[in-house]
């Protein structure tokens, strides 16, 4: 019955919680956006973030405080996504990335709209939809870089690929996305486009 608190030991749980809130929970928005682009729907994104946070909290002692919590969390999130994706998909995406030949949009619009004013007319949902159509290897690289502002080195660490691969995927992902958005803009009449 006697309740004897140990006076000299600060409560480790509270400390753990405080540092987790300070360094990990602040990245919830980033994790959610990336999860949403990876999984493609809000309910799976919720689960993915939830699982990531649970795993991260359990492994919190292994994280070196004050380093790069965002990259560390994104690595966990991506592993969770891959495991789940493999479990669910019997026929994973079999896109030969090297066979995808993006074309450069700038030469197409150079005369009519070199400032890219047509982009301004494309709304959020259309941009997100176009991103979701990219092969997953391109999509994750582009989202980490262009939406979340991670460096090539950080992305290479998260995706476990060489920096050179990050570079080439990013180049082609951007061109591919520009191509999709350009085609959409032509279709909508935001830009005339060059006759095929």
């Amino acid at each position, binding site marked *: 019955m006697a309740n004897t608190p140990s006076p000299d030991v600060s409560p480790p749980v509270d400390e753990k919680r405080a540092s987790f809130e300070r360094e990990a929970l602040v990245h919830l*928005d980033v994790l959610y956006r990336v999860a949403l682009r990876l999984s493609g729907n809000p309910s799976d994104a*919720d689960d993915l973030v939830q699982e990531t946070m649970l795993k991260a909290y359990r492994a919190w002692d292994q994280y070196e405080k004050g380093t790069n919590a965002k990259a560390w969390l994104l690595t966990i999130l991506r592993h969770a996504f891959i495991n789940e994706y493999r479990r669910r998909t019997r026929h994973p995406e079999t896109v030969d990335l090297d066979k995808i030949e993006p074309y450069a949009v700038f030469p197409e619009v150079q005369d009519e709209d070199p400032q890219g004013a047509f982009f301004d007319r494309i709304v959020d949902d259309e*941009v997100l939809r176009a991103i979701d159509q990219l092969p997953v290897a391109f999509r994750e690289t582009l989202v980490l870089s262009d939406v979340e502002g991670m460096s090539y080195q950080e992305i290479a660490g998260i995706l476990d690929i060489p920096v050179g691969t990050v570079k080439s995927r990013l180049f082609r992902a951007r061109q591919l996305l520009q191509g999709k958005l350009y085609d959409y803009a032509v279709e909508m009449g935001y830009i005339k486009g060059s006759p095929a």
Partner: protein
Amino acid sequence: MNCRECVEHLYEFLDRELTPELEREIREHLEDCPPCGEQYDFEELFLKFLRARCRTQGAPAELKKRVLRELFGE
């Protein structure tokens, strides 16, 4: 530095991922070459546009609550 090399490195230049020497070469080329300068402006605008369009969304309030509940029993 010719135009082809410049365009090839344009994204790395925009991403601030080049060595200082190469970065200087590109910057000099861009100043002297209007077509490459125009493409630089176009690509820069595209990246800004992308970021602006894709960052409006954050985690739903319900998810935040769920995570806190799950982690700390709140």
